[in-house]
C-alpha cells in the first residue's frame, strides 16, 4: 500500500526530461550508415529499385511493400535455426544527380539492427549481380 502511494506520488512529479542526445546519431550509427550505403552507376533510380526487388527475391525475401516515387522497398523473411528468427530490411534508392543512384539498406534481425559490415557487403554483392549481370 505504501509502495503504491510512493509510486503514484512519483507519477505526480511530472514527465521526465528525455536525454538530449535522443535523436542524435551515435558514433556507432554513423559508422553503420557508411556500411549501409553504396552508390551504383545506374542512371535511373527506378531501374535500381527494381534491381533491389529482384535481388531480394533471389535471396528468398518476401517483399512487404514498395513505393516507387519514394524509391522505397521493405521486405522480410524468416531465417536462422528452424526459421524462428526474422530478418527485415528497408531499402531506399535515390538519384544522386550525377547519373548515379545511391542505395541505402537498413537490416534488422529479430528487431535489433544488424551492425556486421559483412552482412551489408553480401547484400550489395548480390545487388550488383542483379543489376549488371544478364542471365
Amino acid at each position, binding site marked *: 500500500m505504501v509502495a503504491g502511494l510512493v509510486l503514484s506520488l512519483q507519477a505526480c512529479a511530472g514527465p521526465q526530461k528525455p536525454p538530449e542526445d535522443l535523436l542524435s546519431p551515435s558514433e556507432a550509427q554513423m559508422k553503420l550508415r557508411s556500411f549501409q550505403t553504396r552508390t551504383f552507376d545506374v542512371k535511373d533510380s*527506378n531501374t535500381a*529499385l*527494381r534491381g533491389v*526487388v*529482384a535481388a531480394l*527475391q*533471389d*535471396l*528468398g525475401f*518476401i*517483399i*512487404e*511493400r*514498395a*513505393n*516507387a*516515387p519514394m524509391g522505397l*522497398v521493405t521486405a522480410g*523473411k*524468416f*531465417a*536462422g*535455426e*528452424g*526459421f*524462428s528468427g*526474422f*530478418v527485415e530490411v528497408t531499402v531506399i534508392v535515390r538519384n544522386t544527380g550525377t547519373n548515379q543512384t545511391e542505395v541505402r539498406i537498413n*537490416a534488422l*534481425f529479430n528487431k*535489433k539492427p*544488424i*551492425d*556486421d559490415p*559483412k*552482412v*551489408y557487403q*553480401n*547484400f550489395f554483392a*548480390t545487388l550488383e*549481380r542483379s543489376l549488371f549481370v*544478364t*542471365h
Partner: protein
Amino acid sequence: MPRGLLTVMAGLLLSGCVQTATPASFFELSPDSARNKALQTRLFETTNEKELLSASAAVLQDLGFQIEESDVGVGMLRAAKERSARQAGQEILQGLILALGLLGQQVILMPVDLHQQIGAVLATHRDEQAPTRFMVRILFYRTVWKGDGESGRQYIPPGQQWMEVINDQDIYRQFFAKLSKGLFLEAQQI
C-alpha cells in the same frame, strides 16, 4: 550447417557474447536460388506491365487471395489467403490416433489451435535480354502461428510463428497456367 555448430552458436547467443551469429549468410545466394528462380519465374511476350499485374491480381483473386499491397511503379503485388490449419492438423492427429490405436497404444488428445495464412508475392521485371518480354516471378509461402500444437512434423510453442516457403511445382504451374489463359499469352520458362 552442422548441428553441433548451430548448438554452439545458439549457446553463444543465449550467453549474450555474440549479438548475431549468422545474419551474413542471409544475404548470400544459396545453392537453391537458381532452381527456385526457375520454379517461380515465367516469361511473357508483352510490354504491357500494367496488364500483366492486373491479370496476375485477377488470378490470385480467383485462387481466393486478398490483395494486400500493390505498386505499379515497382511492379509488385502481395496477397494473402487465410486458411484454417486446424482441419489439417486434426486430420494428421486423427490419422495418428488411428494408427496408434491399431497398435494398441493409448493416445492423449492434444488440441491443435493453429492459424495459417498462405501468402504470395509477385514482381514483374523487364527481360534484359529481350525487351519485348517481361518476367513474372511469384513466391508462395505459408505462415503458421499462435500455436500450441503441431503442424506437420514441427512442434510450435505457444505464441510462436513458423514459416515455410512453398516449393510444390504444381502450385506454380497452376498459377502460371491461369495467368497464361487470362492474358492469351504463352508462359515461357526461363
